[in-house]
């Protein structure tokens, strides 16, 4: 297994269970390959970031991204006119 194939499988194993042959081949490759091991660890971290993104974005820490006052007024008008 070369690094290109390993990288695809490192990603795929996050999405579905690999077959025995791929799983075994990937494990052998990772034992020998520092680069692909680092790649796997980075994808792990990206997953962690993604899982926490909603929580952070919805909190007040990101309050600079907001609906404009005009948009809010327009929303309120639409909501009350459809009562």
């Amino acid at each position, binding site marked *: 297994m070369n*690094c290109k194939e390993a990288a695809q499988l490192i990603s*795929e194993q996050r*999405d579905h269970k690999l077959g025995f042959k791929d799983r075994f081949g990937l494990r052998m490759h990772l034992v020998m390959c520092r680069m692909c091991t680092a790649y796997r660890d980075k994808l792990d971290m990206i997953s962690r970031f993604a899982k926490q993104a*909603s929580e952070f*974005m919805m909190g007040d820490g990101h309050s600079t991204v907001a609906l404009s006052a005009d948009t809010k007024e327009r929303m309120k008008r639409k909501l*009350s006119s459809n009562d």
Partner: protein
Amino acid sequence: MSSNIEKYDPNKWVDEHGDALYRFALLRVKDPGVAEDLVQETLFSALKGIDRFKGGSTLRTWLVGILKHKIIDHFRRNRPEILSSDLNLMENETEEERLERGAVRPEWKEWRDVPSNLMENKEFWDVFTACLDGLPENHRRAFSLREIDGIKGDEICKILDITSTNLWVILHRARGKLKSCLEANWFDAR
């Protein structure tokens, strides 16, 4: 009592939940105008269906649940064209190719400087969301459904109308691009 008042006062929903819903949408949908429309539709559906709100969860959680459905509906109704480059496996470079063209950073270099409070670091999230926005639309959708919302692959294939093989390739490409973007703009940039 106060929760009952909040329950039937959509003006208050806009003030208290509008921004959070908007940011939730923007994490999944790049276009701010589309995100605004989705929030508007969410509040409108909530108003019409307020009798279904049982109060077992918070109003915020209930609204977010409606918004999630609106976003998936939007994905189903507006499907971007799948480009052949979306599925081109060979576009991910190997380390040898990177080094040959003079890329400075060896691929195996680990990510250091990951402070424990990274999750509270606004600058980091600005980079993260900018990197998300830099992905092609299909990559962005697949990645956010899979990694941000944790939806199973076969479900995502139905939403995006693609095969599972295509989905795995797209996710591989999306993760690789995000990794490179985070390195260029965060991990190697400081």
